[in-house]
């Protein structure tokens, strides 16, 4: 299959690559760039383990082609921590026991990153709807909701 060139920014780093048009974005991130924090859970956009943020919007990278990310700016879970400091969402998940096996966690964090930018004072119900495209089998969601609230509070306090 003929390869096509793409250029994109991932976690602030510019990348150029020649890829097959059929290559899924999640495989590009995981296998071409070695960013294995983004996971694959279902292939059909239901579980959200593959969620990344593209130009500010959370998308499911298992159902996007890498070529569709040409010219765009992507943030993955590896891009959350800044200068050795955990993002408020990461801190929230740690403090509130918002994760168990950790497999859905990167997707949950990335959905939160986009969501809290649009709503930094969410109700619990708004959070539950925001994460309804992210499945978790371990936690029962209660502590994930608390983790989002913890992060929202911390971000408000920090002026974000």
């Amino acid at each position, binding site marked *: 299959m003929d390869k096509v060139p793409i250029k994109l920014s991932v976690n602030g780093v510019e990348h150029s690559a020649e890829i097959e048009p059929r*290559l899924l974005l999640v495989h590009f991130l995981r296998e071409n760039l070695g960013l294995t924090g983004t996971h694959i859970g279902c292939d059909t956009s239901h579980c959200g383990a593959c969620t990344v943020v593209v130009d500010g919007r959370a998308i499911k990278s298992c159902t996007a082609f890498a070529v569709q990310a040409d010219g765009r700016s992507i943030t993955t879970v*590896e891009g959350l921590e800044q200068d050795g400091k*955990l993002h408020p969402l990461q801190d929230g*998940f*740690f403090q509130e026991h918002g994760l168990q096996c*950790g*497999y859905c966690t990167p997707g949950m964090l990335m959905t939160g990153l986009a969501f809290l930018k649009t709503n930094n004072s969410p109700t619990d119900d708004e959070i539950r*709807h925001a994460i309804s495209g992210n499945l978790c089998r371990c*936690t029962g969601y209660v502590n994930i909701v608390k983790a989002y609230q913890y992060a929202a509070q911390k971000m408000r306090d920090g002026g974000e």
Partner: protein
Amino acid sequence: MAPKTSPEIGGMGHSVKRKEDPRFLRGQGNYVDDVVLPGMLYLDIVRSPYAHATIKSIDTSKALAIPGVLAVITGKDLEKYNLHWMPTLMSDTQMVLPVEKVMYQAQEVAAVLATDRYIAADGVEAVEVDYDPLPVVVDPKKALLPDAPVLRTDKKDKKDNHIWHWEWGNREATDQLFRDAEVTVKQDIYIPRIHVSSIETCGCVAHFDKVTGKLKVWMTTQAPHAIRTVFALVAGHVGLSEEKIQIISPDIGGGFGGKVPVYPGYVIAVAASVLTGKPVKWIEDRMENLQADSFARDYHITAELAGNKDGKLTALRIKTIADHGYTDAAANPSKFPAGLFHVCTGSYDLKAAHVEVDGVYTNKPPGGIAYRCSFRVTEAVHTIERMADLMAHELNMDAAELRMKNFIKPEQFPYKSALDWEYDSGNYGAALQLAMDKVGYAELRKEQAEKRARGELMGIGISSFTEIVGAGPSKHFDILGLKMFDSAEIRVHPTGKVIARFGTKSQGQGHETTYAQIIAEELGFPVANILVEEGDTDTAPYGLGTYASRSTPVAGAACAIACRKIKDKARKIAAYLLEAHEEDLEWEPGKFFVKGSPDRAKTIQEISLAAYTNHPPGTEAGLEAVNYYDPPNLTYPFGSYICVVDIDKGTGEVKVRRFVAIDDCGNIINPMIVEGQIHGGLTMGLGPALYEEIQYDESGNCLQGSFMNYLVPTAVETPNWETGNTVTPSPHHPLGAKGVGESATVGAPAAIVNAVVDALWHLGVRHIDIPITSAKVWKLLREAGVRG
């Protein structure tokens, strides 16, 4: 119970933040699909579109013509090495790849080996298989009819689809109690086939080194040590020797029982690596996971409960047909083909019981594995809790009152059940009372009466379950002959730091934190200075793994005993250093001191250093211990759950308004983690109660083969769980702990069903099989003449 240690030490009772979290939060976990080796090949699997068909031919030529496709492996290739069949954990047999026929839809038919996962998928598309369809049997009751086609034609002399008959209890005494009963209730209950659907699917990376002869396999397994032995037994004849097999269970993205069995994909990947000498990765996708991995439940139960008009229960009688698919690949202790189903007398003091189960073959994927439960205990709890509720309604008695009247009393423990289990400890009435107080039971009943008068549908359901976990005592518990002990190996380093390894394997339960807390509790080392490792068979001591809530009851006990061995030696070293008699020393967390002279003390860190630099003459240097713990009994966690539902008369939708869960898992190691386990367990009880089911049409087509129609609860359906606890320690566990990872999944579904039936009883509804979908309720409402 107040913690004995400071928060800095972090022993039992502290909500220590998890040691495993920092890597997961940064996307630095190491799951099996993250493992990449130089020259690694990819394996993908051709699967059958038919549920039952003869394979006439497999044409691999088009696949092999694709650049990058290196090989297509078929059953005939494996047959040359006698690897086309393998034993199941229940001593049945299972195909790795078929030679003659397929037995279920999505069964593995051939495997494509390629340089890239996309090319492997291209290869799968290009393999042409010619099938001749055979009659399909999906209903286990029809499978038992005399004219049913015999499915296991591979078994010589097999004339029917019946696998085994198993029964337990006193039939005569039970029948007599039923004859004498003032009131009996009888109910058919189907507990459908469901799938654990851990968010990470199954897979492996197999690497056979042709020079050293060593096989290294990273795989999604809950039981790495047992798997190593199984591989050695299954493939010993082709030269795999156990000392040269290393199984590494890396970070696991949820297990819940689905990662106990050996799936054909693992074996094919290993065979492919042995043949090529290259690393081979196999990762199943979600559809393969849902359609072909082992399933849970699928019990067709007929239950009867006998009692007196005053509500006193006397006897239970159960007959069950167990649909095992085409092979019995359950993961039960070998002596118990129906698992621990005979804990079905539950929390009640019955005089007698009798239970029969018949295993049956059908054209479905293999199974009978657990779904976050200890060997069929969910089926047992569901049955008795439904029956107790039916009896209460039949007698027009409050469901809580009937339970209180029949509970095994605290003073009856240790209690020998009618089906021969010895319950270790319990205080069932206290848990139910706490749940009732917390939910506001009396007010809710009042509200329900008012709403019913207005025509609104509201129900309150109770489940007062008793679990049975921590398998198990070696006298009765083994898998393939391997006794179900578990192990801990603890090494204290000279600088007072600790590494500890276990035969179990966390899949999210937080072992790296909780085992460290046990060591902190016993020896006084801070949790921060303790490294816990599991899952590498080259380094960890042998154990049977993590499932059936056995890690704390068995490996946790091993951990405590190993610590106590270390403490005994530490006492000798302290006595030597303090020039005191051992019996004159007293212990407080983290140090020994001379009785009456608290300033004459040696800290555990000072003792650690002395163990390597100044150990007592005539003793061995070092400070290490190993323990293989054979539990004297199982542990019996329990709890009482109360669920409140509102039902939409128009749509039939069930809304769980409140759910109060009171659990008692004995002494608690980490309250934060225990609560998290209960939250998750409750959600995996909600799913099967309202949404999850794997069904097949008459042709054996799987109808819920993706997350499009296999409905796992999202945050929107999941209520805000309300939890609480009582503490009744296990008398025989070294820490008084019992295990908690699965209690909620076991106890929750019955509470939800009982609530829905409670809401609809006045309309003539007596029972609804799970999952209670809106469609089922809608139909019942319309039949009862209720308008939306």
